[in-house]
């Protein structure tokens, strides 16, 4: 059995499971499927695989516009815990996450640590509402990022137009912190990688939802008749569909490159910024074209295309807008320390 066959199998299982009925998929089901513990080491009860496999689940969840706590609880929760130095409390928590006993969420920024007391205000934290354990990243007194267990904080749901995502405000008012975990290796790099992971996770989701909308649109254009023939035979419609496929194809290249960079454990900054900015912007275009090419039906609540448009729009804003990621990329063009010329010549592929 090859690597790619394993991926195909995972993709097909995920697609089947997620396409059944309601778009809400509850935590026990995700645990049962083994998706929560994909990146958890085998000795802690997980599958011991990489972000490459998580990315497959994310893409399929985008396709199905799945409502689940996977982003906060698995992608960020497990991603954070596995980036920490091993300890009894960390290992125990990781095992509890893999078994489904504990659901986590992660506050990437917004909270501050003074001594052992946590305060501050974080917004749009994925899946914080209803989480059993909140993990917050904050700088210690030496300015080194650590992860703390943010217990006794206030979590207030932030309803958004996209009903498939759960976001919340997290407020900490000078609360005592019982657990402090240190990152394994260079802490700043680990934090950077968690941000990259969050951005790429959303890019995977946008790729999946764009693919779903392309398929739905092409299927519709093949059967919807006007002027006595399928609308997909008209150039105006056909060429718009072709452009959707081109955008999805480019997005897939960039997302795959970023997923590979993250799974390899190297510096994924450039690849992540490229994937997030392109895939999340392209997905909005693609869903917009899907709504347009479905005509009046596409604009109805019933058609459900609005669900995808809202999710694509939210994804675009989550974890850095396309413009923000492009601004980060552009800083390299005028950088004196690392000549852009040499770095670019060897490419990202």
């Amino acid at each position, binding site marked *: 059995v090859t690597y790619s066959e394993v991926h195909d199998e995972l993709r097909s299982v995920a697609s089947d499971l997620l396409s059944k009925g309601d778009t809400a998929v509850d935590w026990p089901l995700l645990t049962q499927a083994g998706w929560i513990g994909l990146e958890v080491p085998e000795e802690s009860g997980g599958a011991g695989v990489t972000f490459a496999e998580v990315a497959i689940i994310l893409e399929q969840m985008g396709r199905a516009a799945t409502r689940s706590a996977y982003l906060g609880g698995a992608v960020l929760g497990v991603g954070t815990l596995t980036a920490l130095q091993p300890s009894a409390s960390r290992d125990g928590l990781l095992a509890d996450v893999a078994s489904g006993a504990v659901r986590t969420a992660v506050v990437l920024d917004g909270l501050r640590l003074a001594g052992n007391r946590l305060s501050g205000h974080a917004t749009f934290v994925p899946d914080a509402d209803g989480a059993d354990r909140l993990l917050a990243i904050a700088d210690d007194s030496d300015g080194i990022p650590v992860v703390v267990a943010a217990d006794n904080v206030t979590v207030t749901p932030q309803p958004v137009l996209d009903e498939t995502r759960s976001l919340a405000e997290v407020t900490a008012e000078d609360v005592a912190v019982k657990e402090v975990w240190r990152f394994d290796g260079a802490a700043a790099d680990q934090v950077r990688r968690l941000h990259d992971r969050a951005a790429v996770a959303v890019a995977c989701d946008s790729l999946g939802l764009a693919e779903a909308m392309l398929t739905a649109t*092409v299927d519709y*254009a*093949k059967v919807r008749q006007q002027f006595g*023939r*399928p609308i*997909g*035979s*008209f*150039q105006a*419609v*056909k*060429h718009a*569909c*072709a*452009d959707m*496929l*081109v955008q999805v*194809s*480019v*997005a897939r*290249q*960039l997302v*795959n*490159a970023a997923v590979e960079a993250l799974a390899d454990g190297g510096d994924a900054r450039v690849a992540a910024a*490229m994937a997030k*900015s*392109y895939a999340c912007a392209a997905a909005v275009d693609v869903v917009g074209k899907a709504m347009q090419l479905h005509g009046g039906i596409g604009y109805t609540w019933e058609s459900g295309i609005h669900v995808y448009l809202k999710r694509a729009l939210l994804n675009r804003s989550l974890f850095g807008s396309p*413009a923000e*990621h*492009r*601004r980060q*990329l*552009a800083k390299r*063009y*005028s950088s004196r320390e690392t000549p*852009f*010329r040499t770095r*670019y*010549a*060897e*490419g*990202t*592929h």
Partner: protein
Amino acid sequence: VKDDLDDFRATVRQWCETHVPADWRRSQTGVGDDEFVRFQKAWFAELHSAGYAVPHWPSEWDGGMSVAEQIVLYQELAAHDAPRLVLAFVGIHHAASTLLAAGTDEQRRRHLPAILDGEIWVQGFSEPEAGSDLASLRTSARRDGDSYLVNGQKLWASGGMQADWCLLLARTDPEAPKRKGISYFLLDMTTPGIDVRPIRNAVGESHFCEIFLNDVAIPADNLVGAENEGWQVAQATLGAERGLTMLELVERLGNAGFRWLVRACRPIDDPVVADRLAQFEIEISGLRGLCRELVENTEAGLAGPADASIVKLYYSELLQRMTDFGAEMSGLAAHTELAKPLSSGWESGSWVLDFIGSWEWTIPGGSSEIQRTIIGERGLGLPREPSAV
């Protein structure tokens, strides 16, 4: 593997440093045809002696370089601003891939070594009444003993004035449906009855030609594939070589093209400029991935029916947008560059001329409109348009 590639990169880099002709851009600007041909042939011979002229050919014909190595080679050639093989292009790509896929052993033995010795090829496909609708071509080839007698007119034949041989599509069965009556020939350009006239293009160059064919005799041995199956031969080889030609062009876009664009953009920290540049860098990166995947999938027989069209469409339109932005950024000064070096392609660095020249990529080889139709029909399975035939 990574170490091997690094070693290979170091070898190519060193070779480029000592072999890329210095100052060729200045010395090739405004030269006549003879000097252009001499320079191109000399550079081809130089590349060939290093094993870099036809890396994409099979190993028994002096090629056999892996896709990863080819990418490194093209990156280094672009980074060292080496001239492109514009004159040999049709020979090393279209002619070679056609001969390798559909030619006889004798045809391969006759032409592949000759191409390595500098034989120049031209493509005789389009006609005045057969542009996007190529299959409606009218040039006729009538069997006459051991030969075919060819009459008609070809258009947009790039390099026609210099070509030794021509890849010719002609109609051998006027009664058959239009795609079923076409044959594929190798035509010796010294045959009596051929008249070639240059057409000046929008940037002022004249590499496009008209070819008039008046009772031109082609020996039947120069038929490629079976009679009346020329359309299938052309279709099969056009897609296969698309990725390979793109591999180099995409690296040019990523290296010379983008680096020059960064240099042309001042002030570099202007947020609007920076945003546009980053968007281009992202798109080039995606295109690189697409192109590499196309080449690898083509080799493995896994390429989708519209994959080559996606790469061609995206490349040519990205090139057009990038050169447009370069022209905008480089301001009035760019308008004082009245000529570009003949041996450059679009990547002359003269942004205004390069932008105007970008239509040479969105129109020929199947225009962007044709590519979108192919992507829609073959890639997505959308219904065909009602056809006249």
